[in-house]
């Protein structure tokens, strides 16, 4: 077996690196899954508002992408995912989580049903070992496509118009979680109406060789629709505003947990709606049935917090000052004008009427203040506009 040659670079460029680097005025980088990625390009507020007001483009090439094919692809995915994968028809995408036998979440991600017996699993974390581990007895092939596929999130109210302007005719008719393909520069461009912002938006997937032409065409088409590249900081605000959890922040991927009990189940992440006990056996089913019967340890909540100081890393206290939970992600949300936190509450806390306070520390000119800010549980994400779902997509 001959191996790929060594690459002595410590961190790798994504397929869009030349364009991203040229536009990254802040020179503010971090490493995402081994790839150089911008925290910001110019100013986080401008980038955030591009996603909420016009079009923001985020390079998500480092996302893990596995191609799962073969006669048993559907049966295999249905065996390892908590949701009924059979209901994700060809040309559709489904959000899902996958669990250990103990019912603890490995990761969340999206399943693209590209064609009969042909799926793509897209996620933040890697799970090749576990997929192979679970594939015994199934006739499937699992291939890591991460490096070979360049991907862009194109999100915001003018995203549909931008893509139409780029020549993707009929894109406005693509339904949420729908997938369509378009010819592009002699290659196939895959477009899904998916995203991590809770808004109208799309994700574009193409052979890595086509990355730069795609970027150029996209930005040319979007110039008058006020397209702008966005870094991970802006995306981080948008996803909290939309109530989306993130691996490594709001939960620890089960396989990486060292301290017993630190993982979370789907129920403990507010994802009970995904778990389908009627579909037949799947990994973690028995443990999740038991949890459903006996109760969970934690409750995931979206908290609306009084005041405007973000509650990052805060403990949540009851009215006696006892710790009853903690914040896993928090941001001031500029569109909703709300101070939002995602939190993990010890059961039974986090009920609608519970009296709860976030313990927030902030520093102004060497003067520290400790706030106890009242929290209210939100039943829905604070940002959830109709345009997110409207089909045909409107050009707003």
């Amino acid at each position, binding site marked *: 077996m001959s*191996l*790929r040659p*060594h*690459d*002595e670079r*410590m*961190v*790798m460029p994504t397929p869009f690196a030349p364009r991203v680097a040229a536009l990254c005025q802040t020179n503010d980088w971090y*490493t995402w*899954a*081994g790839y150089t990625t911008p925290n910001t390009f110019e100013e986080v507020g401008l980038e955030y508002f591009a996603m909420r007001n016009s079009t923001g483009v985020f390079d998500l090439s480092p996302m893990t992408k596995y191609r799962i094919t073969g006669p048993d692809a559907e049966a295999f995915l249905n065996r390892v995912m908590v949701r009924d994968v059979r209901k994700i028809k060809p040309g559709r995408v489904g959000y899902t989580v996958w669990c250990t036998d103990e019912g603890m979440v490995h990761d969340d991600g999206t399943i693209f049903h590209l064609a009969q017996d042909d799926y793509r699993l897209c996620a933040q974390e*890697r*799970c*090749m*070992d*576990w997929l*192979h581990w679970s594939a015994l007895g199934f006739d499937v092939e699992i291939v*890591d496509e991460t490096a070979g596929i360049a991907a862009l999130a194109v999100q915001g109210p003018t995203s549909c118009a931008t893509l139409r302007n780029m020549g993707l005719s009929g894109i406005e008719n693509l339904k949420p979680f729908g997938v369509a393909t378009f010819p592009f520069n002699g290659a196939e461009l895959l477009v899904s109406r998916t995203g991590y912002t809770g808004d109208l938006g799309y994700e574009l997937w193409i052979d890595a060789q086509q990355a730069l032409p795609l970027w150029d065409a996209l930005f040319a088409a979007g110039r008058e629709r006020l397209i702008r590249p966005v870094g991970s900081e802006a995306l981080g605000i948008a996803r909290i505003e939309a109530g989306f959890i993130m691996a490594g922040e709001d939960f620890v991927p089960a*396989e*990486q*947990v*060292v*301290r*017993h*009990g630190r993982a979370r189940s789907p129920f403990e992440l507010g994802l009970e709606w995904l778990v389908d006990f009627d579909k037949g056996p799947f990994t973690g089913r028995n443990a999740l049935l038991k949890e459903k019967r006996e109760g969970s340890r934690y409750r995931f909540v979206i908290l609306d917090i009084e005041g405007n100081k973000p509650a990052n890393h805060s403990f949540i206290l009851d009215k006696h000052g006892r710790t009853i939970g903690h914040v896993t992600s928090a941001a001031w949300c500029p569109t909703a004008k709300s101070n939002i936190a995602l939190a993990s509450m010890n059961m039974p806390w986090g009920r609608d009427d519970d009296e709860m306070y976030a313990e927030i520390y902030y520093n102004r000119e060497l003067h520290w203040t400790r706030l106890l800010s009242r929290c209210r549980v939100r039943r829905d994400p604070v940002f959830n506009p109709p345009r997110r779902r409207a089909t045909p997509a409107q050009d707003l």
Partner: protein
Amino acid sequence: MKKYDAIVIGAGHNGLCNAAYLAKAGLDVLVLERNPYIGGATVSRELHPGWKYSNCSYVCSLLRPEITRDLELPRHGLQVIPYEGGVTFTRDGDYFGNYGDHERQYREMARHSVRDANAYDRFSANVMRQTRLIRKYLMTTPPDPTSFKPRDIKGLLELAESFTDMGDEGLLDTLRFWTMSIGDYLDEYFETDLIKAHMAGSGIIGTALGVYSPGTAYVLLHHYMGDVDGSVGAWGFARGGMGAVADALASSLKSFGGEIVCDADVHRVIVRGGRAVGVALADGTEYHAGTVVSNLDPKRTFLECFDASDLPAEVVHRAKNFKIRGSSGKLNIALDGLPTFPAMPKSSTLMVSDMHASESLFELERAYDDWKAGTWSEDPYFDMLIPTQVDPTMAAPGKHMMTVFVQYCPPTLADGPWTPEKCDAFGKTVLDKISRYSPDFKDLVLDVEVRTPHEIDNEVGLTEGNIFQGELTFDQLLFNRPFPGYAQYRGPVQGMYMCGSGTHPGGGVMAAPGANAAREILMDLKKPNVVPEGYLDD
């Protein structure tokens, strides 16, 4: 003649640590060292002018941070600089780089297998789970499971609780881990032989067992349970070589008024009326003390420093049967410049990592077969580092010192005893192997110190040249180290104690045995405890 409160036999790191704590508690302490220099196997010596060698132990991770801090070893000159990663060269001119950076390591593993690259996360989480269990017990006297003393019952309950804390599978996983082979363990995670071979090294270093011998998975844990600045599993270079550890301990000891006498070869522990009352040197000099502590291994302690008639027969038998087989040799090499490894650029971060050239578990097992047959491995495993890329004090600028730990190498050869010629032939086997991966290496060699188990036994005093003062197998760990019933540092004779790596928690430059023994001694002397205890990590 002056009577001391305590005499420690042997100025290894554990003897020095033990003495430092006894002196800190106000005792009048004397350390007696056979060699003209201190340190035991924690030593730096200038055997070639201008070059300092870490003659035995060569990297530092296990040294307990509680001790470093409490004895103010940094103030006494100790600095440990972390290094990261490792590399295994392959015959086809390639290499496997086990980078410290997680993503780079992933990418490198994925060259061989995407699945293995991902499985590493599962592997490292599971190993970390085991280190968290054992780390709690490093600075603790092992509880005696046959005792009904409150402290032992409490200790056993805490042990049971630690298992419960690991979850339902904790006890099962742990029992498997502590008894299985490193080869079988790695087979549960990885499919690539080269990756397994790279990882397996930590399971056999210092151990006269093969990669498929039961018990070697624990040896890997023993190499992962230390830390540098809170980074568990990390290793570092002691500035000035490992002798810096002994020197700092000695300086701390002296700051508390302790004394060290070198060239003092203890011949006998003097026992009167069932009590240890002092020691007699080979030259007849006697030193007297109410407490005598041995830093020597259990065999040297009980079979050489005592009259058998002064000891319970059981202890003599246990000492005779104590497993302390030498398995490794060492080359310390003065180099005129930095050797080239054409497989990778000289600027590679892996130049400062531990280097190896064993490509498969089969090769490693074969290397062990040679040991069983009574010869050194024809194709040995080595763990090779060039610390002078980080440490400016061990050689002149531009010059380098290379430390090469070599396995396997038997304490006695099938064709008769070690001779200088055989020692040279062993060295040549290793030099030849290194030069296969570095063509300019041999031209740069200015001096080589070759140490077989024979030299390690005779010069350092480790029986059979076993670097851990006794093998780290489950039958000789925790409350069975060194022997059942003698794991709480007290010897079979009143007033006599053990503080070497032959006691819990075992070998490596950890200093925990010395500290734990001091705590027990102070308890017996009804002195307030000055020794840190327990576990601070979360």
